[in-house]
């Protein structure tokens, strides 16, 4: 799996971070807009966003004085690729086993 500064699976393991990703499904949001919809403080949201960004799951852009965050599609590709890799290997191993079990 390509190396990110933070592991996306670690990023996804937190309920608040998952909630942030769900909010971003609706489009880009500022830190304040995200914090308004969550039971945690703005600094806490900023910390979560920094980790999500390091994990490649969100990106940000500046709009005037605001910083807006949105989902990073390529980041989710990395997650999918990892799962395909693991399950892909498993499917390959099963085929190998099945082939070797055939009566000759």
């Amino acid at each position, binding site marked *: 799996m390509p190396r990110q500064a933070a592991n996306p699976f670690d990023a996804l393991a*937190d*309920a*608040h971070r*998952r*909630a942030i990703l769900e909010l971003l499904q609706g489009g880009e949001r500022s830190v304040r807009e995200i914090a*308004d*919809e*969550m*039971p*945690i403080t703005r600094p806490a949201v900023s910390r979560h966003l920094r980790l999500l960004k390091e994990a490649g799951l969100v990106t940000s852009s500046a709009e005037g004085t605001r910083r807006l965050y949105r989902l990073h599609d390529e980041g989710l590709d990395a997650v999918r690729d990892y799962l395909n890799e693991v399950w892909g290997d498993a499917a390959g191993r099963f085929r190998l086993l099945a082939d070797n079990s055939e009566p000759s």
Partner: protein
Amino acid sequence: MTDPLRITFDVACPPERAFELWTKQTSRWWPTSHTVSARPDVGVVIEPGVGGRIYERTPEGEEHDWGRVTGWNPPSRISYLWHLRQDRADATEVEITFAEGERAGTRISIEHRGWDALGARGADQRELNQRGWTRLLPHFQAVAG
């Protein structure tokens, strides 16, 4: 005046069960994303009776106060002050009634009021809370049927 939020929905289980699920088994359905600590094993407590505390608590003992029960009439009605993330002075009030519905189910009516007391922020807070309820209630519906 900013109108109260009003939400009504039906669940399949009878009122006694719905009330119990809401107030005694809150941890079973309350999503951890709607807590301050967001730990997978966080407990949510609604202490029975008027004056009962409403709070979250982790097994390590970290607690966050959310509100206080103002009305307790099992199985038909609970009301409480709600100040999660706000100053206690900015608490709004929630009233939930559990009435007999069709086919032995329950009609649940939620009224969330007190927005005017928040002054200029009232309308925005009402909007945010409306969105919060929309995200919360499917979790209750999933256990209440």
